[in-house]
């Protein structure tokens, strides 16, 4: 298991290649990369606040649950905090498993839990001001799938 909470950026390709290297029991690797989106070309910066201490602990618990439930060979979570520019990577999840269904489901599960249960809060700084991103009801509902 790899869990990193950091302000530094990361290279998703390098992380994907380093993940779960050299094991012969892995047939499927799924990765998710979250990127700062700016469809309307109005975003100047995204600020991500977190709860130091609780963050890593909460993520490790979620990852441990996923590894056990889907019998994963390995799992990775990287999540950034601080000031991020449009196009920058926010976070990444990767799962490795013998078969593809487990890798897909576990990555989907991890994303749902990170969205609503890991202590991060996003604030968008636009030309017109700053506002905290609202949690979506659908994100909370998504947890009921599991």
């Amino acid at each position, binding site marked *: 298991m790899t869990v990193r909470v950091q302000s530094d950026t990361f290279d998703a390709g390098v992380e994907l290649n380093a993940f779960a290297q050299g094991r012969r029991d892995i047939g499927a690797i799924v990765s998710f990369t979250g990127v700062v989106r700016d469809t309307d070309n109005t975003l100047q910066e995204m600020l991500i606040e977190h709860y130091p201490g609780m963050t890593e602990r909460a993520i490790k618990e979620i990852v441990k649950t996923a590894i056990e439930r889907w019998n994963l060979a390995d799992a990775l979570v990287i999540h950034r905090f601080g000031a991020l520019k449009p196009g920058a990577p926010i976070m990444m999840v990767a799962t490795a498993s013998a078969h593809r269904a487990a890798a897909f489901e576990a990555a989907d599960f991890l994303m749902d839990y990170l969205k609503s*249960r890991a202590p991060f809060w996003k604030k968008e700084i636009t030309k017109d001001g700053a506002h905290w991103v609202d949690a979506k009801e659908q994100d909370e509902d998504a947890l009921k799938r599991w």
Partner: protein
Amino acid sequence: MNIVYFAWVRERIGIPQEQVETNAQTVQELVEELKAREERYAAAFADISALRVALDQELAEFDAPIAGVSEIAFFPPMTGG
């Protein structure tokens, strides 16, 4: 007891953390105490359903007892990922 605030809860209250002495038995009672203190607390805790609480860095409910807890955190629903 240490209380920590995040995101817009922190902004409304104006400080990231503080030490408080309390006789409150539950989170809910502590919230009522704080709301009675000053307008900025009343504003931050106006709608409890929009808030989450963690006791010693574990998510909890507002009716949870707080005896023996050393850190209470208040924050809006998380928006990670």
